[in-house]
Each structure stands twice: as C-alpha cells, then as structure tokens.
C-alpha cells in the first residue's frame, strides 16, 4: 500500500509539473487581461525543440533553455496580434495553437519515436528524499520539481499580491483604463506578461520531453495545454492554488497509470479519458455546487478585452 501510494504520488508530481508550469504562465497572462489559447501549440513547440536541441547539444539545460526561448518567441508572436494589434484574442490564440502544432510536427518529423537520451536525471536530496511517501516524490526525482512546485508559484504569489508592481499588474487586468490613467504602461505590461506566459508554456513542453515522456511523437501534448487553461479557471487565477490543482490533476493521471499497471478491468482507452473527464468535472462541479464560488473565483474583469485608449 505504501509502495503504491509512493509510486502514485511520484507519478502525480512528475505529470503535474507539466500542467503546473503551463498553468502558472497562463495565470500571469490572464491576470493582465489576455487569454492565450495558444498554450497547447507553444507547449508542442517547446517539446519538439527541446528534443531537437538535446540530440545535438547533449545538455538538458540547453534543451530547456531553447524550449523557453521558443515559447517566449511564440508568446511574442501571439502578443503582437492580440496585444499590439488588438486583434481578437480567441482567434489569435487558436491560430497560435494551429501554427505551433503544425510546425512542431513538421520540425519533429525525423525525430518522431526516437527515445531522448539526454534528460534530467534522477537527483536525490539526502535526508529529505527518505521521508516516507512524499520524500521520493518531491526530493527524489529531478532537479526541476522544487522550482516548479515551490519557488515559481511562491515568487509569483509574492510579486502579484505583495508588491506594488503586482498591484499594477492586477489593475491592468481589472480596469485597464484606470490603470492607464494612473500611468501604468498597459500595453507593455500585457505584452511582456503574455511573453513570459508563453516562455513558461515552452518550458512546460521542454519539461515534458526532458523528464516525463522522453520521446517526441505527434500529438504528444495531447490537450495538456487546454487542461492547463481549465485549471487556471478552476484555481480562480491564483498562482499557489493553480499549482496545487495541477498536482491534484497529476493524481488523476497517475490513477490511470496505476489502473493500467494493475490490469484493472477497464479498457486503457477509458482510463486515458480520465484526465479530460476530470477537467470537465473540475470546472463544472464547483460552480454548480457552490454558487458563491463564482464571485470568489471570478476572472479579471477586463479578461479577453482589448484595450483602446481612445474608445470609451
């Protein structure tokens, strides 16, 4: 039983990391009022470029860095359309996803199906990794777990809710006209946070192929970008909660692995549906059961609305 729990939690932490990164990036973008539906495509681009990089450079760090940069460039392309040109955010996001998925498949054509040899190896932090159940999951996997689950969300939380910059940032997402009147650079704020969100989506893709599923194949992102978008809504646009819900979501994924490993009498296809069904339940059930939730977890008021200085 302990073995099972330890294994499940380890898988959950590993699988949830992908979602945690992408969802945290999307929280940043949505907090400044931009919905980036391109996450799925940027993750695919990050995943494939990480694989391509490590196949020649043999360093997971360089691979991850390239994935981050590719994600940032993709985020900038999206931001150019959605923020600078103020085009429809839904369309720009879908277009980014199409471009990302199409390009990544075309780029990764000759890498498809080959195992990635250079990945982030196992790192065991002495003492901490011998804590029963949670030790191996948090401190005995790869070096990125602690930054993803602890450092990044806490930093984002601190900046967002404890600094003046964070207040400005939230103001841009709630009421850009007022923020503009107060002298906050609305456009720059939106552009750079969307870029940062894109970089984190790229990083999530790189993390996916450099730790969790070390092989590139077409469609391997498999809707994780969309699940991340749903988690952002579920978590009420809060960095720490979004990270925890990514972990919860990792557990759902782990459950389907455990089911397949233990030969549960359910077809694997149905077990593979679990994450999607789970996400549906995540965003529908709380709102239905608990009506007050809608106000507490409300989206930023100016979400998905382009800002025109001269239109009232």
């Amino acid at each position, binding site marked *: 039983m302990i073995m099972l729990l330890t294994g499940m939690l380890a898988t959950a932490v590993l699988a949830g990391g992908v979602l945690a990164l992408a969802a945290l990036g999307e929280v940043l973008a949505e907090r400044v009022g931009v919905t980036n539906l391109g996450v799925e495509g940027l993750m695919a681009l990050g995943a494939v470029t990480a694989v391509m990089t490590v196949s020649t450079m043999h360093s997971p760090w360089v691979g991850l860095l390239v994935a981050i940069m590719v994600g940032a460039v993709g985020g900038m392309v999206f931001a150019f359309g959605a923020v600078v040109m103020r085009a429809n955010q839904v369309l720009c996001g*879908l277009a980014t996803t199409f*471009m990302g998925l*199409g*390009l990544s498949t075309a780029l990764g054509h000759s890498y498809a199906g080959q195992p990635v040899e250079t990945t982030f190896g196992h790192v065991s932090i002495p003492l901490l990794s011998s804590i029963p159940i949670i030790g191996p999951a948090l401190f005995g996997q790869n070096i990125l777990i602690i930054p993803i689950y602890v450092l990044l969300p806490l930093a984002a939380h601190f900046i967002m809710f404890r600094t003046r910059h964070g207040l400005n940032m939230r103001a841009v997402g709630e009421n850009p006209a007022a923020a503009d009147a107060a002298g906050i650079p609305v456009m720059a704020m939106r552009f750079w946070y969307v870029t940062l969100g894109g970089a984190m989506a790229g990083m999530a893709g790189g993390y996916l192929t450099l730790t969790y599923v070390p092989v590139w194949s077409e469609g391997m992102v498999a809707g994780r970008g969309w*699940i991340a978008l749903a988690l952002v809504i579920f978590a009420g646009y809060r960095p720490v909660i979004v990270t925890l819900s990514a972990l919860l979501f990792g557990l759902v994924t782990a459950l389907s692995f455990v089911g397949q490993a233990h030969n549960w009498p359910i077809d694997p296809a149905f077990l593979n549906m679990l994450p999607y069904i789970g996400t*549906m339940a995540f965003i529908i059930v709380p709102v239905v059961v608990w009506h007050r939730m809608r106000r507490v977890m409300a989206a930023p008021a100016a979400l998905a609305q382009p800002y025109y200085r001269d239109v009232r």
Partner: protein
Amino acid sequence: MATRAFQRLPTAPAGRILALRLVAIALSLCIIAGVLALSGHSPGMLAELILRSTLGSRFGLEDLMLFMCPLLLTGAAVTVCGTIGLWNIGAEGQFYAGAIAATGVALGLHGPVLIMLPLMTIAGILGGMAWITVPTLARAYAGVNEIITTLLLNFIASLLTYYLTTGPWRDRISGAQVSTQRLSVSIPEMWGIVHWGFPVAIVIVVGLALILSRTRWGYEIRIGGANPEAARYAGIPVRLRIISVMLLSGGLAGLAGMFEVAGTVHRLQGGMANNFGYLGIVVAVLARGSCLNVIPAALLMALILDSGIVMQTQQLSASVILAITGLILFMIAIGDELAHYRPVATKPAKGKAS
C-alpha cells in the same frame, strides 16, 4: 495625445475587411513561399502543380467537393453558435460522435437503404447533439466557459473512436487497423466520387441563412448575441435560445460526421475527423457570422486542404497545412482589426479626452 491620424470605428465596413483579408492572405502566401524557398523547394513550381491538380483536373475538383462537404457543416455549426456569441470549439468531437452513432446504426441494423440512410442521419444528428449536451447545460445554467468544455470533449470522442475501432467494432473481415469493416449502406454518388451529401450540405447552409435572417427565432438569437442584457429585458428567453443554438450546432457537426462515414470513408476510422472540426472554426471566422458566406469560406479552406495532398507528394508533411491555416487565421484576425480604422484628416486636436 498628439493629433491622431486614425479613428477606430465600432463596425468595420465590409469592403475594407475584404480588401484587408486579401492583403492578409497574400502576405501569408508570401511568408509560406519564403519558407518553402528557404527549405529548398521551388514555390513557383509548387504553386503551378497545386493549381493544376486541384482546379485543373477532374480528380482535384471531386476531392475539393468532398473536402467542402464536412467543412460546410462544421463551419455552419461554429457560425450558428457564434451568432449568439458562443464558441463551439468541439465540432471535432461532435463530428466523431455523429460518425459513431451513424456507424452504430449501420452495424447494428439491417434494412433497405431508403430506411437505413434516414435512420443513420437521425442517429448522426442526435450523436452530435448528445456530445454537446454537457457543455450546453453548463453554459446555460452555470455560466461555465464553453470553449474549454467543448474542446475537452474532442479528446474523449477521439479516444472513444479509437476504443471502438480497435475493440468491439474492429474490422474482422479485412483486418484494417483502427477501423471498422466497410459499411453496407452508403450515400449514393452523384458525380464521380462526390456523394449527395454535398448538395444537401449546401441546401442546409442556405436554409440556415434564411432561418437566421427571416424567422423570429433567428432574430432572437442575433439579439441575444449582440446584447444579452437587452435581449433579456425584451423578454427573450436567452437561456433557452442558448440551449437550442448549441444543440443545433452539435447536430450540424454530428451530421458532418455521418456524411463522412456514409459518403466518403464508408467506415469508422480513428483520426477520420481530419481536423474538420477545428477547420470549421476557420471557416466560420472567414464567414464572419453569415451562413451564406460559409460556402465561399469552405471552398477556400477545401482548396488549402486539397493543396495539402499535393504537398504530401512533394515530401512535405501534411501537418504543414495546419501551420499554414494557423498563419492565415492569424493574419486575418489582425486584418479584421485593422479594418476598423479609418484615416482622418489631421486637424488641430480639439480635446484631449475625445
């Protein structure tokens, strides 16, 4: 602010949109040609080849119509949903659901074609409707974002198709992978390989255009999309209209799946939706909320898909088409926004708060 040279209009004039879209498409084609030239292909030769084998040959034209058929319906599905201000990103899943339901009828029942085809059609429509039910109710009663719920169901539908075509419904006769056996019932062909689903789809799209522009129901939908508050104040049951429109949308996408199963592919296959659901979004965007415009928009999209086949013969992966579609969509989104701006004569600024 200094004197502004441009003024933003709340609605963009149609002529300007058309002009900017042509520019957007031309620009996209230039970028694509540039990328192709850089990767060692000859864009000019490729363009000639594409034109010759799509519009210039009978096979190309037949393929074009076969591609148009599902695109007309998924495009219409996204368009009607957009009329009330909602995004149905799940046409892909509803397409599968319709295909599954129609296949279920074809495999489970036996009878004359005249009875089977209507039954399969009804099953396909109901399948698509069933697939959008949960997002519809969640949207209408709890305000849950329909973009994400409809989209997530695509993955579930695709997995279900995979399960059925490798499990209970797998092909036991010819042993084809991830596929059912060939269905005994099919939509009759009218011109080469083009089946009667194509004219039916056109009639449906035209009919929808009439319903949306000429009936009370259509009027209420349009008002509900333009201004939900005003619609509610005027006594329009917006919630019921949302439900009916979303179900209609799901039914249309399901019908597309049925046509594809019974007319084109003749069997249920994994991956048979071929992104038609997602491309339906592009068609709807190109159509700008008008069902009649869906026809030329689907034609353009079918041309792009058709040229994808040519590109595959030239050692270019089929996924390039998805990237190209994305680029065109992106350019058009920007072009549509720019169409809102009108140059104004620079006068001395009267007031800063204008």
